C-alpha cells in the first residue's frame, strides 16, 4: 500500500483513470450540449424580447406579444433566481412524479443544463442586441428591410459576435457546474470522484486529481474559444483590387 500523498496519486490514477476519464468526458459533452441548447434557447428568448411593440390598435397581436414577453421574463427570473442543484431535483423528480416520466439521465441533464444556461444566455444575447448601434437598424429600415430581415442579416451577426466571449464563459462555467448533476446520479467527473475516493477513503488525493482534471479542461477550452473568436473575425486585411484583377475576378 502507498503511504505518502505522492505515492497515493499515481496509485489511484493507475487504478481509476478509465473511470475518471469517462467522467471527465461526460462532464465535457453534457456541458457542450447544455451550452448549445442554452445558446439556442437564449437566442430565441432574446429575439422575442426585442420585437418592437406593435401598435395598440392591433389588439390581438399587441396582447399576445405582451403575454409571450411576460413568460420570457418569468422564465429568466425563475432559472436565474434558483440554484442549479435545486432545479435539477425539481425537474428530474417533478417529471417522474407528475408525468410518470423516467427520463434517461442524459436527456434529463440536457433539459436541466439547457434551461438554466438558456436563462443566462437570454440576458447575454439581449445585451448584445441592444448594444448594436441604432444606426444599423435605421439604415436597414430606410432600405425597406423588415424587422426579421434586419435581425437576421444585420443585428444578430453583430450581436452574437459581440457576446461570444460571454458565451464561451458560460461553457466554461458549465463544465464545472455540471458537477451538481451528481444529485441525480449522473456519472460526471465529480460523481466518479466520489465513487473512486470511497474505496480507500482517500478524499483529498482523489479530489486533487479531479481538480487538476477540471482545470485542464477549462483552461484548454478558454484557449480554444479564444482562437475561434479570432478566426471568426475574418482576415484583418483586404485586397484592393486593381483593374486587371478585376477582369479575372468577374
Amino acid at each position, binding site marked *: 500500500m502507498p503511504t505518502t500523498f505522492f505515492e497515493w496519486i499515481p496509485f489511484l490514477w493507475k487504478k481509476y483513470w478509465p473511470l475518471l476519464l469517462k467522467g471527465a468526458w461526460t462532464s465535457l459533452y453534457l456541458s457542450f450540449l447544455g451550452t448549445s441548447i442554452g445558446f439556442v434557447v437564449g437566442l430565441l428568448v432574446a429575439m422575442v424580447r426585442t420585437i418592437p411593440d406593435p401598435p395598440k390598435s392591433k389588439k390581438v397581436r399587441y396582447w399576445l406579444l405582451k403575454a409571450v414577453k411576460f413568460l420570457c421574463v418569468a422564465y429568466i427570473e425563475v432559472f436565474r433566481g434558483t440554484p442549479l442543484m435545486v432545479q435539477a431535483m425539481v425537474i428530474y423528480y417533478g417529471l417522474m412524479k407528475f408525468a410518470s416520466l423516467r427520463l434517461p439521465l442524459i436527456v434529463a441533464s440536457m433539459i436541466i443544463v439547457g434551461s438554466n444556461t438558456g436563462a443566462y444566455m437570454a440576458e447575454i444575447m439581449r445585451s448584445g442586441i441592444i448594444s448594436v*448601434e441604432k*444606426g*444599423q437598424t*435605421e*439604415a*436597414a*429600415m*430606410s*432600405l*425597406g*428591410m*423588415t424587422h426579421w*430581415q434586419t435581425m437576421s*442579416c*444585420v443585428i444578430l*451577426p*453583430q450581436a452574437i*459576435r459581440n457576446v461570444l466571449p460571454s458565451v464561451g464563459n458560460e461553457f466554461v462555467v458549465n463544465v464545472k457546474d455540471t458537477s451538481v448533476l451528481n444529485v441525480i446520479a449522473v456519472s460526471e467527473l465529480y460523481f466518479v470522484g466520489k465513487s473512486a475516493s470511497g474505496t480507500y477513503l482517500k478524499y483529498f488525493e482523489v479530489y486533487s486529481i479531479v481538480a487538476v482534471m477540471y482545470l485542464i479542461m477549462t483552461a484548454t477550452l478558454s484557449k480554444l474559444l479564444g482562437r475561434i473568436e479570432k478566426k471568426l473575425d*475574418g482576415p484583418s*486585411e*483586404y*485586397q*484592393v*483590387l*486593381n483593374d486587371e484583377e*478585376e477582369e479575372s475576378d468577374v
Partner: protein
Amino acid sequence: MSEPIISVEHLGKSFGTNEVLTDISFDVSQGEVISIIGVSGTGKSTLLRCINLLEQPSYGTIRYHGEDILSPHFDLAHYRAKVGMVFQQFNLFNNLTVLENCVVPQVKVLKRDREEAEKNARNYLEKVGMLQYRNAKPSQISGGQKQRAAIARALSMDPEAILFDEPTSALDPELIGEVLDVMKNLAANSGITMLVVTHEMSFARDISDRVIFMESGHVVEDDTPAVIFGNPKMPRTREFLNRMLKNQ
C-alpha cells in the same frame, strides 16, 4: 409641372412637449435637387426622418405619388426601397463587406436574384469609385469611402429619390470633396431626385435646383438658389447666409 413625387402637407412633429417641426409644406418634383439649409437643431434631420418614417409625424400628411404614406395599407417597405437615405454617420452594415452592403438589401427587399443584385451593386460601386474596395469591411475604410459606399448602397435599390442627411458633416475636411463630387455627379447625370440637408453652401448654391431655408422648425424661405443666395426675401435668410459664407 409633373405631379410631385413627394408632397409634405402641414407636417408637424413634437417630441413630448418640444415642437420640433411646425406646419411644414412643400412638394418635391421628379428629378429635382433640393438643398435644405439652416442652423443645427432646427429640425432638418427630423424632417428627413419623418419623410422616411423613421419618426412618426405628429400631424399632417406626407404623400408619395399622391398616396398617403401614413395610411395603414401603404406599402412601406416598397416606399423605403424607392426613397433611399444616406446618413451623417454612414451606417454601413458593420458585419458585411462593401459589396454585401449593396447586395443584401436588393436580395431581401426587392427579391432580386443574387447575380443580378451583384451586377447592379458593382455598377454603382464603380460609379462612386469604390469597386476596388468591395471586399473591405466598413471598419477598414476611411469616412469618405464609407459614405461613398453608403451612397452606392442607396443607389443599388434603383430609387426614385434619395434623402441625404448632412452626408459630409462627419468627414475630415480633406475627405469632403470626394463625397461632394459623387453627389454633384448624381445631381447632374442620374436624374435621381435628391433632398439634401447640408452645410456645404457651394453645393446648395451651385448644384441644387431649389433651396429650403429652415429655422426653428419652420420653412422660412423656399426658392431657387439664385434668389436665396442673390436676393433673399427674408432678412433671416440673409443673416444666416452672411454668417455661413463668412465662416467658409
